[in-house]
């Protein structure tokens, strides 16, 4: 696409896609902004006019706001930590030559194909149920009182369920990265006198830094908006109300579109703050 002519032709042909995507993004964002400045109660009078920043003030001064931010951060950071640490370990394990490697790899990736709603229900009913769950049976086998996972350790349970879903993704990305590591580098380090743990720390981990960055960035985007797992397990109770869930409750349970929209704008801001931080902390890995 070197000539003036071919460049403008290219622009012309790309235009429909770009306009469609831009519209897809801008229309909901503008509507959210629009509603966030209105008092809009569908069941209780509909559009009640402009209210300025009232919704924004009400949303942050509500006693549910800060706990929801904390819950969001705990879930995101917890899942990131678990998936990255176990993802690296699993990737190293799967990189070892072994019998039935292909099948094992597919099995490891499998959880990623299970829909969030389904996996959360499976966890809730088959594992975490305090009466019939597998964990309850396991605890009883050792003579212990079964834990009521979703009420006593609600946040931890959600982190566990979501980690289970995202671990395959992290493992997959990290496995491909680990496979691209030049084995001569490891051999050189071995000759240089580095024991296995040092080889991991000095060679493998730095080699994986870029892949870890990508895992962290992509997962953060998706984890900020998890919803189904909370919806089918705790319904936002026991401290598991994330920002996303709070907005849902404001819009659908309280039927307050204006307040929910203001929350949506806060969520956008929070996501951007996280994005800036992430770019600062880990983005430099992508340049190298």
């Amino acid at each position, binding site marked *: 696409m070197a000539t003036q002519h071919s460049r403008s032709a290219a622009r012309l042909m790309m235009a429909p896609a770009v306009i469609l995507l831009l519209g897809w993004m801008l229309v909901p964002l503008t509507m959210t902004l629009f509603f966030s400045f209105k008092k809009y109660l569908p069941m209780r009078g509909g559009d009640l006019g402009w209210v300025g920043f009232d919704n924004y003030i009400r949303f942050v001064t509500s006693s549910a706001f800060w706990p929801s931010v904390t819950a969001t951060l705990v879930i995101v950071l917890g899942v990131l930590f678990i998936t990255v640490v176990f993802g690296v370990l699993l990737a190293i394990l799967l990189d070892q030559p072994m019998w039935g490697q292909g099948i094992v790899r597919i099995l490891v990736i499998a959880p990623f194909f299970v829909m969030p709603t389904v996996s959360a229900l499976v966890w809730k009913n088959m594992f975490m149920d305090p009466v019939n769950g597998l964990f309850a049976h396991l605890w009883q086998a050792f003579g212990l009182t079964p834990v009521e996972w979703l009420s006593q350790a609600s946040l931890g349970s959600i982190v566990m369920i979501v980690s289970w879903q995202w671990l395959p993704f992290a493992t997959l990305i990290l496995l491909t990265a680990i496979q691209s590591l030049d084995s*001569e580098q490891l051999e050189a380090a071995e000759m240089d*006198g580095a024991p296995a743990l040092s080889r991991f720390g000095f060679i493998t981990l730095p080699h994986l830094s870029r892949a870890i960055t990508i895992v962290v960035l992509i997962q953060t985007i998706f984890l900020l908006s998890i919803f189904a797992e909370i919806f089918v397990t705790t319904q936002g109770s026991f401290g598991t109300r994330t920002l996303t869930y709070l907005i849902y409750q404001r819009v659908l349970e309280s039927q307050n579109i204006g307040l929910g929209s203001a929350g949506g704008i806060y969520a956008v801001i929070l996501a951007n703050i996280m994005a800036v931080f992430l770019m600062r902390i880990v983005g430099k890995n992508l340049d190298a």
Partner: protein
Amino acid sequence: MGQIILEKVSKTFGDVEVIPPLDLTIEDGEFTVFVGPSGCGKSTLLRLIAGLEDMTSGTLKIDGVDATHVPPAKRGLAMVFQSYALYPHMSVRKNIAFPMRMAGVDKAEQDRRIEQAAAALNLTDYLERRPGQLSGGQRQRVAIGRAIVREPEAFLFDEPLSNLDAALRVGMRLEISELHKRLETTMIYVTHDQVEAMTMADKIVVLRAGFIEQVGSPLELYHKPRNSFVAGFIGSPKMNLIEGPEAAKHDAHSIGIRPEHIDVTDSGGQWQGKVAVAEHLGSDTFFHVHGTGLGETLTVRATGEVGYKHGDIIHLTPRADQIHRFDASGLRME
């Protein structure tokens, strides 16, 4: 000290015997080159010495001490890899410091050795750069620097120059030779390039399919190849091997004559043929001659500029004292 002795060392991968039991002694301070066509087991042999592969049987002694089951790090050997195997996320300084850091050498001593190695290898200006910012030759020197600072018993080089361009290769060849003269440490060098072997080695080990075909100094191998394989492998261009009636005249199954040992004349030669290709290099001229009745092609080297061209009929005379005779199994006959 860096004497390395291999006794009955063998290696099999599954059912494939890559290296049949072999014995080899590498004396302290010697520059030994393993040379052979690709797949001859020369790299495997080096990796066995390094300890990166386990031997199937046999013993390895370094300085008289059995090192067969000693892990690679404890053998006191430093290796330079074909891909250089530099650590991409570390600066040149950290790369060179790495083996000392692992060995727990104190910081001042580390810096002293790094400065010394960098000065010797012209790397002083590049110490803070990453390997990715260096050229092929500089990376090669960093890899050598990383090996030097360990002050090893012996250096192992695994085809270190094969990723460099021709001009750099000649330069690095000289640098490695100089380094050996200066350090007087044992070096084992693997290559498939017989020119590298001839120019650098004190001792060449020619390998084929895991077997040692001949061990000797470069000129021994050149003048007295033990068999027709070594005769064909050492020397450039390749030795002409002639079978049939012409060989029978010398009571041999085949005879070998190097291109540089054939004289070219306009007339009156022992053999005659038609020039198929003439390669004029200025210092030398190579002729590939067809239709001599001795075999496919005969390669001849004439010194300086000789004006024959494609299609010319030329006369060739081998120097009688430079004819190598081989029996039916390819072995040299005296």
